[in-house]
Each structure stands twice: as structure tokens, then as C-alpha cells.
């Protein structure tokens, strides 16, 4: 299989020969409106296509949905599931906020870690959760990721990660900032042990996560059209008072400027990642 096949969009809606334009108005079937092409798509069809519109727009995906799509059925074992943040700085409103978010999202924290297989290849896996305070990184996210990379060093496993984050979680102040250094040091140990780390940047990946483990992969992939950057676009506009170039901070912009290896549509991610894991599995002890 030529490598290019991993990178070419594979769209089940179009493959099926169905035209996506005249959507059947099934009474009662919930629909979602695509922010890109403005069409309404029945949710069941969107689901069948991995939450990707026929125009190629990638909807945000919950972390557990992503895990079920990317890992081989029944192989994922979650690690550190109960680990969650307290309110170390007694930041006003933070405890209430996390409690509400826990109820609404069904998650304890903004990242899910574990082990599993992808195309038969064993790996450690982390997936960030945009529905939990926009995937922001506090002490718990930092601790879980650090433990995962340390676990991967012990078991000599590669790490596969999916990022989505607004950056460091400001309600944990300096402790959040320090997680950038802590996780980066763990990534470095993993790398120095000769082990493989592939990261997939999804929409949006920004701030302190971009300035740490999102940019530290041996191979860095990105979903089409994802916003990836350090500073927020609005802040940049206010600071520079200049109009932003077209497609600024999109995956394609990062590819153009040399900061991602490839843009990979969701439908092809599993095949490509398992291929990459296979390629890197024969590495001997450094």
C-alpha cells in the first residue's frame, strides 16, 4: 500500500456512491449542521462516517469515542482512571466548576490514559477530552501523562497521543505551568530510551500543550483543518493590529511551515498509526 493512501481522504459517504447534498428529511432523526458546508446531516450518518462531514469537515469527538475508533476492540485498558485535580490554590469557583464539568462530561479529568492495541500493535495511549474544560492541563493531566510515559519506559512501549487543549489550566496557576516541564521531561526520558511517540493534533491544540508534548513527538500528525498554535488568534490580532493570513494556525499552515509531518483524515488514522507502530517495533535496545 502506497503511503499516500493514508493521507488521501477516504470518505465513506462518497464511497458509497450516495450524493450527500439532498439529505433525506427523516422526521424525528436528529441532525447536525456542518459549520463548513452548512448542510444538515443526520447524526446516524455522521456517526457512520466517524463524525466527518462529506465536505471533509472533522467534528470534535469525545475522547472515549476516539479510543473506541482507534484501538482494537476490547484491547483498551484504562490507567489511573480516578486521578483528578483538587483545588490546590483555592481558586475561586474552581471546585464548583470541576464538579459541574464532571457531571456534564462523565469524565474525571481532561485526559484518558491507558494501554491497548492498534492494528495488533501494543502501545500506551492518551486522548485528551475537549468536553472537560477544553482539555486544559492542570496537575492531574500532567501527572497522568507523566505516569503514562514512565509506564511506557518501564514496559518499553510506544506512546500514541491525541491532543486537544486550550492550554494550561489557569485555575491551578503555576502548578499548571510546571506540568509542561514535567511532562516534557518524561517525554525526553521515553525518547532517550529509544522509544517511539506519535502524536495527532486535533482541533484545537493551543497554548501550553502546543508548547510542550504536542510538539515533542517523533512523528507529528494533524487532523485536517485543526487549529494548532501557541497564542490565540484574537490575542495576536490585538497585539499586532494586523490582519491574520488566510488559514492561519490551521493544520495545513503548520504543514506548510514545517511543524507537522502529515495531515491525516480521521478515516485513515488507525491504519497509518498501526503502520508507524509496526515500522518502529523492531528497534533494539539503544
Amino acid at each position, binding site marked *: 500500500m502506497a503511503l499516500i493512501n493514508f493521507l488521501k481522504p477516504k470518505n465513506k459517504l462518497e464511497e458509497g456512491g450516495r450524493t450527500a447534498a439532498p439529505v433525506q428529511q427523516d422526521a424525528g432523526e436528529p441532525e447536525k449542521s456542518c459549520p463548513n458546508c452548512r448542510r444538515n446531516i443526520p447524526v446516524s450518518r455522521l456517526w457512520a462516517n466517524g463524525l466527518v462531514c462529506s465536505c471533509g469537515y472533522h467534528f470534535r469527538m469525545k475522547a472515549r469515542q476516539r479510543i473506541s475508533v482507534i484501538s482494537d476492540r476490547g484491547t483498551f485498558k484504562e490507567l489511573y482512571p*480516578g486521578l483528578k485535580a483538587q483545588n490546590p490554590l483555592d481558586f475561586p469557583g474552581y471546585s464548583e466548576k470541576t464538579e459541574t464539568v464532571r457531571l456534564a462530561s462523565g469524565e474525571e479529568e481532561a485526559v484518558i490514559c491507558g494501554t491497548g492495541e492498534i492494528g495488533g500493535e501494543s502501545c500506551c495511549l492518551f486522548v485528551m477530552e475537549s468536553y472537560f474544560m477544553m482539555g486544559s492541563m492542570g496537575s492531574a493531566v500532567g501527572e497522568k501523562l507523566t505516569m503514562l510515559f514512565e509506564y511506557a519506559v518501564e514496559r518499553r512501549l510506544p506512546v500514541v497521543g491525541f491532543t486537544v487543549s486550550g492550554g494550561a489550566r*489557569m485555575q491551578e496557576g503555576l502548578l499548571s505551568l510546571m506540568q509542561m516541564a514535567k511532562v516534557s521531561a518524561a517525554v525526553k526520558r521515553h525518547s532517550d530510551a529509544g522509544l517511539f511517540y506519535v502524536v495527532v493534533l486535533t482541533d484545537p491544540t493551543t497554548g501550553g500543550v502546543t508548547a510542550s508534548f504536542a510538539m*515533542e513527538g517523533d512523528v507529528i500528525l494533524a487532523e485536517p483543518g485543526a487549529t494548532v498554535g*501557541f497564542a490565540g488568534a484574537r490575542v495576536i490580532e490585538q497585539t499586532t493590529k494586523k490582519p491574520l493570513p488566510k488559514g492561519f494556525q490551521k493544520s495545513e499552515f503548520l504543514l506548510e511551515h514545517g511543524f507537522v509531518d502529515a495531515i491525516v483524515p480521521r478515516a485513515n488514522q488507525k491504519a497509518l498509526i498501526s503502520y508507524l507502530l509496526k515500522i518502529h517495533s523492531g528497534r533494539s535496545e539503544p
Partner: protein
Amino acid sequence: MNETPYSRVKLARDSKRPTGLDYITNVFAGFMELHGDRRFGDDKAIVGGIALLNDRPVTVIAIEKGHTAKERSYRNFGAPHPEGYRKALRLMKQAEKFGRPVICFIDTSGAYCGIGAEERGQGQAIGENLTEMSTLCVPVISILIGEGGSGGALALAVADRVWMLQNAVYSVISPEGCASILWKDPSKAEEAAASLKLTAEDARGLGVAERIISEKDLGKKEFYDRIRDLLSSELETLGKDTDLVGSRYERFRSLGTGAVIKERL
């Protein structure tokens, strides 16, 4: 001293405070500036080079804000571009090659937010400094002398020792930014500054900084003499650590571990 956290922020930003170059000139002898990242350009917001600390060769890197309006504009107000962080990393690697300790002086509101900075990978540049500094085989001491603005400050502070001037601040976000994001009201910066726990005492309490440096005689000869002595004796101590990289890993590894609940509820 009855300073509030927000008045500390204002003090930390005061253009009359000694800047990075003031420390370089007064603490060290024989400074030779080394320019450029060998990849794109030379960032004026970061000054680095080789110098002598009591006759001992060291690599010194400082974020420079400038004092006058003209200087501040030339230094981009101490907001580094990716090439600044890459220059710093180049000099640190050089220090490692020649067994020189690295001393960093940090004073920035943050890494620059701009189009070029994003095009050249601000996030990647900071991230690379974090990974590479974590395994640098020579002692690293970082001193926050004014503002310690988020990732832009941390990119020079993955150190064996982090010290803060009495009125320096270190924060994940500016109080104004925090107030406008969380409470949609930048005028609540005072409250945000208090909540963010960004003072030197807070940082020491959280284990983020080891030492608070008194600002007695700030900018005078006695002040710089004191810093020189502190650095010399600390390098002496660090020189005895046979597992510097391991100790640095543990230093950062422990941060925030006390802030999480590990039991499954």
C-alpha cells in the same frame, strides 16, 4: 512590606528595575555576547554569551526588556520570538559541550504573540527547550528578576535552582488575561493576581522556586555582589551532585503531585 499581589505585578513591570543586561554587566566579568540561532536570525529580546563568574567560565542568558522607550522597542519589550529560544538552546548546548554552568535571568511578559512567531513555531521552540533542558548535563540556575510570563519564562527555567527576586512574579497567565477570560472583566486583575498565587513567596510555597532574593540595595554594587556570591556558592553545591539530571527530573516530577487525588471514588 505590605505589597498586594497586584502591586507586586506592577513593581515587577517597572521599567526602572534592573534588566537582564544590568545583571550581566554587574555580576559577571568579561562578557562576550554571542548572537543568532544559526537557523533564522538574532532575537534582540534574548541576550546570551560567555562570561566569568569569579574567574569561572559560565554561559549567561538573559531576557532583556530595556529601560528607555527606544530600548524597549528594540528589545521587543522582552517578548522573545522562537529564534530567541533557539539561540538560548544553542548556547546551553555549547555550555554543556565545554562543561560550563548556565545562568539565566528571566524577565518577560511572555513569548511574543505574533504572526511570524507562530509561522516559525513558537510552541515547538519552547517545547524543545523544555525537553532539552531537562537532560542538560551542566548545572542550570534561573533567576526571575521581574516578570515570569508563562511558557515564555519557563522555556529558560527548567533549572536545578529557580530563584526569584522579592518582587518578581511568576504566573501561568497575566492577571489581566486571567480576569478577562474567566470573568470577562480585565478590571478584576487585582483579584486575579491574588488568586493566581504568583508572588515569590507563593512560588516558594508551591516548590516552584527555592530562594527569594531580597531587593535591599537593588541595582547597587552591594546587590550585585550578593548575587555573585549566591551564584558562586550554589554552583559549588550543585557541582557535588553526581546525578544532576536525575535530581532535576525529580525536582519537576514532584510538582503538582500533591494537588491530585489518586483514589478511585
